[in-house]
C-alpha cells in the first residue's frame, strides 16, 4: 500500500504572468515527482500540489529562489489519511454493532 509520510500539499498563488509561467514549468517537470491536485489555471488562481518528502526541500528552495510565495495546505498527508482510515473503521464497527 502506498503511503505518504511527510508529504506536503503546498498552495501556491501565482501573482503575475512570470510566476504563472514558472508554475507551468513546474507542472512539466518530472524530477520533482509532483502531483498537482489543482492545476495551473491563471494569475491569482490557487495551485495545489503534493510534494513527496524527499523533494520538499528542493521544491521549496526552487519556489523561494523565484520569489514565489507558498503556504502549506497539508503538513503531513499521511496523518490525514490515517485519520480517514480510522474513521472508516470505527464507522464500520458502529454499523456492525447496530446490526
Amino acid at each position, binding site marked *: *500500500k*502506498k503511503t*505518504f509520510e511527510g508529504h506536503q*500539499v503546498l*498552495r501556491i498563488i501565482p501573482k503575475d504572468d512570470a510566476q504563472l509561467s514558472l508554475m507551468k514549468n513546474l507542472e512539466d517537470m518530472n524530477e520533482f515527482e509532483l*502531483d*498537482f*491536485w*489543482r*492545476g*495551473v*489555471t*491563471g494569475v491569482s488562481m*490557487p495551485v*495545489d500540489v*503534493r510534494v513527496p518528502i524527499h523533494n520538499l526541500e528542493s521544491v521549496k528552495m526552487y519556489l523561494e529562489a523565484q520569489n514565489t510565495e507558498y503556504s502549506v*495546505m*497539508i503538513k503531513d*498527508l499521511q496523518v*490525514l*489519511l490515517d*485519520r*480517514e482510515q480510522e*474513521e*472508516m473503521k470505527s*464507522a*464500520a464497527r*458502529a*454499523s456492525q454493532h*447496530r446490526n
Partner: protein
Amino acid sequence: TDSFDYSSYHTLSEIYSFQDMLVAENPNLVSKIVIGQSYEGRPLNVLKFSTGGTNRPAIWIDNGIHSREWITQASGIWFAKKIVTDYGTDPTLTAILDNMDIFLEMVINPDGFYYTHTTNRLWRKTRKPNPGSSCIGVDLNRNWDADFGGPGASSYPCSITYSGPSAHSESEVKSIVDFVKSHGNIKAFLSVHSYSQLLLYPYGYTMTPAEDQAELDSLALKAVTDLASLYGTTYTYGSFFDALYQGSGTSIDWAYNQGIKYAYTLEQRDTGTYGFLLPANQIIPTATETWLALMAIMDHTYQNPY
C-alpha cells in the same frame, strides 16, 4: 437504507450493497441497470429513478469519474437516498419525477475507486495498462469524443490527464456513450467532481461560446446562489474554458454536442484545506448544498422542455 451511515466513506462493495438495498426497498421507484463493465470486470451500475412511462425525458447524474474525489461518490449515495425520501413530499422533485426519469451513476470509475481504498488513496485514473508504458490508466474525463486529444489533454500515458489511445476507448466511457445515445431523450447531463468549488458548462476545448451560453450562464448563477444559501459556500461559474482551463475530451462537451443542452460539471468542496481528503463529517453538508444546485438545474430542465 435508513440506518446506512451517510456520514462515513464507504468501500465499493458497501456502495454496491447500498444500491441493491435501495432498489429492494423502493421497487416501484428505483431500479438498477448495469450498463457495462469496467476494465477489471466490475459492474457499471446506474440507478434509474422512474415513476413510470416509457422513454421519458431524463436527467443523467454521474459521480466519481476521478476516483480520488471521494466526496463525489459519497454524495452520490446521499443523492440516491434523498430522491427516494423526497419523492412524494418535495413538490419540486415530485413534479420532476412525475414527468422525467433520473439516472444516477455513483461510481463511474470503480477500478480506480477500489484502488484508492486498497493501494493508493490519491489515484485519479482508471487501472487499465497502457501498452508500451509502465504507467497505468486513462483520465476518463479526457476520453470523450469532443476535440479528443486536443489541448488540455495529454498523449503521455504517465500524465494524470492522459486521454487514452482513442475517443471512447475506455469501457467506462463507452458504456455511458452507448447508454445515452440509445436512450435518446436525456435532457440534462450533470457530472460531479471535487474540489475546486466550480460550476462549469461547455465548452472546455474551445473559447468559442456555446450556442446556449446565455441561458447556461444564468442557470449557473441560480444554481450557485441556491447552493450558497445553505452554508455560504461560494462557487465560481462559467464555461469550462474560461473558469478553469482549456480541456479537451471532456464529458460535458461531448454531451452538449450530442444535443443535451443542460450539460454541467460541478466541482464540490473544498478549496484549500483538505482537498481530496475532505473529512467524513463534511459529507452530508457538502452533499446537501450540492443537491440544491442540482435541483436548480433539474427543475429548470423540467420547466424548459426542448
